[in-house]
């Protein structure tokens, strides 16, 4: 079902003479009047349309931040829902400009035609099992059937965990998200494996009773979910990087959607540079100097986005944990905005 789409993507690579490589992505995007982002097929908290069809989620807002940086308008974005398998070819062939879609940063992907920008979310790969099974950690899962979605790093994790702990897990591999989840909730599998936050999202939105399920980490290793861009356009990569950096820096400086206009009169030289009161940053990227101001004005800082989509302000109630700023003991590290 998905393979013919991949085939078309491969064919598109063969046919598009110079379309995708003609000039920098920024020019193409400006000419088109909007950016095109890869999105998930519905993972609440990261990327899904709400009941009015408006896309929300952490990945989605990352993409909106880039749209604000370029056009000053968070709605100049088009979202293309992609399966795990389709997402990388779609980026490589120029169907989308940015791929912020719960994409784990790995060597093989990085080396093979895409570049990773700045991690927007750190987390464990997790297992979800029903509470009735009595299982609370990986070591107790001997012989369990695990529903896995193809096109993700979790396929390899299942195998690694199974081999390392000699668990003899029975993977049942599906091509699409909905089938994988349906098979888990119907009892075809004992466990569902994916990113822990996505599991929390599935549990909160798709189970009959979220309290019947428990989630625990599959390994002690952490993944960095990172938006990616195509090889070959350094300026575009910089723009995406610094749009994300703007969200992180704003949180570090205590700039929020609510107080940003007051902050314009701040005496802190860093804040002045950040907001474009002291010019130069935006121009260096080929953007307006007020791009960071616009991003925070329209979307808020990273903490606000996290809170509204995944944290206390959302249905998922996920702890910030490793996704706090370094200054609060987390892994998020804003680079110097100068």
């Amino acid at each position: 079902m998905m393979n013919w789409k991949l085939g078309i993507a491969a064919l598109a690579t063969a046919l598009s003479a110079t379309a995708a490589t003609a000039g920098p992505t920024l020019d193409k995007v400006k000419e088109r009047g909007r950016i095109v982002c890869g999105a998930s097929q519905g993972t609440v908290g990261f990327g899904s349309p709400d009941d009015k069809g408006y896309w929300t989620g952490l990945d989605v807002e990352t993409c909106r931040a880039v749209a604000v940086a370029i056009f000053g308008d968070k709605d100049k974005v088009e979202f293309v829902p992609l399966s795990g398998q389709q997402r990388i070819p779609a980026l490589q062939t120029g169907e989308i400009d940015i791929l912020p879609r719960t994409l784990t940063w790995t060597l093989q992907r990085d080396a093979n035609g895409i570049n990773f920008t700045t991690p927007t979310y750190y987390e464990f790969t997790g297992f979800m099992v029903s509470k009735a099974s009595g299982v609370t950690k990986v070591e107790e899962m001997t012989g369990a059937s695990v529903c896995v979605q193809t096109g993700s790093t979790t396929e390899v994790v299942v195998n690694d965990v199974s081999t390392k702990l000699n668990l003899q897990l029975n993977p049942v591999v599906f091509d699409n998200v909905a089938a994988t989840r349906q098979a888990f909730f119907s009892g075809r599998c004992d466990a569902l494996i994916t990113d822990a936050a996505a599991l929390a999202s599935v549990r909160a939105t798709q189970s009959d009773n979220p309290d019947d399920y428990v989630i625990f980490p599959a390994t002690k290793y952490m993944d960095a979910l990172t938006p990616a861009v195509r090889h070959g356009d350094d300026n575009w990569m910089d723009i995406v990087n610094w749009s994300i950096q703007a969200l992180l820096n704003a949180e570090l400086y205590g700039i929020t959607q609510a107080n940003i206009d007051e902050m314009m009169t701040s005496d802190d030289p860093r804040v002045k540079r950040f907001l474009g009161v002291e010019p130069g940053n935006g121009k260096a990227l080929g953007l307006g100097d007020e791009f960071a101001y616009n991003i925070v004005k329209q979307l808020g800082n990273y903490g606000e986005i996290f809170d509204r989509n995944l944290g206390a302000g959302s249905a998922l109630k996920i702890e910030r944990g490793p996704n706090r700023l370094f200054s609060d003991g987390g892994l998020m590290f804003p680079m110097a905005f100068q």
Partner: protein
Amino acid sequence: MFSAVLDNRRFRSWSGQILLLGGFAALLLWLVNNTVTNLDARGIRVGFDFLWRPANFPISESVLPYNPSDNFLWAYVTGVGNTLAISVLAIFLSTALGLLVGLARRSKHPLTSGVAGVFVTTMRNMPLIVHLLFWYALATTALPAPREAYNPLPGVFLSLRGFYIPALELDALAWAMLCLVIVVTWGAWRLRHHLFGSGRWHERHPVLALLGLTAAVALGAALLLRPGAVVSFPEIRGFNFTGGLRLSPEFAALMLGLVIYTSAFIGEIIRGGIDAVAIGQWEAGRAIGLSERHTLTKIIIPQALRIIIPPMTSQYLSTVKNTTLALAVGYPELGLVVGTVINQTGQAIESMALLLGIFLSISIAVSLFMNWYNAHVALVEAR
């Protein structure tokens, strides 16, 4: 003079063909060149050396032995093995069911032909993917959890996790003996007139005599050589059943869907083939005193086959290609494996090329076989 060359029929036909061929070659060259340039511009490596790297991803079930530490090449082979296995089984079973449906459609009994007619109409007019999803949803919702599995006979379990039956596990020696017994029995059956002479009781009961002989030989060999044969019973241990022979819900849903869908088409092909044989052939059969059954098998079917084989070839080819829909129900046929390989390696073009090549080879093999069979049953006319 120039117009003389243009008017030359040989020249025109040859130059046309050369132009066409040249154009095609140029198009191909342009495509390849374009692809290489684009891939290079995007920093995508091309080549087949990834095939020797360890695959590291699991395949949920396979006919051939597969371990995630095997290389990508073996993952492909495993996918091909699964595709071939389900294709062959689906073709075999749907032909058998299709024959029944076709014959039932021709039945004089209104109930039989009516039921067969409804079967064909409904099954043929639903997309295959709906069949597959229906059976899979049924298999994963209507059945009980493994701990509450239906247990109709000792050692037989039916649950969400599949259908488990006891398995006979043979070692190499036992397999060799089994093969030998089959070969000896078949040989003896072919040579029964020479072996047993005639007129005696075993001439009148050759099956009994054969069975007795084989049993005696097998028992003697078993006592002398002691081959290893163990019956393994499925039992629930931890989360799942271990031991025994397993039919997974994914495989079962795929088989049911494919066989029912395909048999509706095959039934119609067979009915059409039989109906196309002139009524006079039936009357001729009856006139020389053949029973209905003999008329059908000796006179009608050999003639109907000539009409049936060509559309049947197309049907078999469709069935092979339809197996790629298995990824909707999580059965790891070649398409699903290729999708995973693309995601793990990023080698989309190479993987799609392999997928195309493999399916083309399988389809060509099927059609060559069917063409050979078609020639075999064709009417040999006097020269």
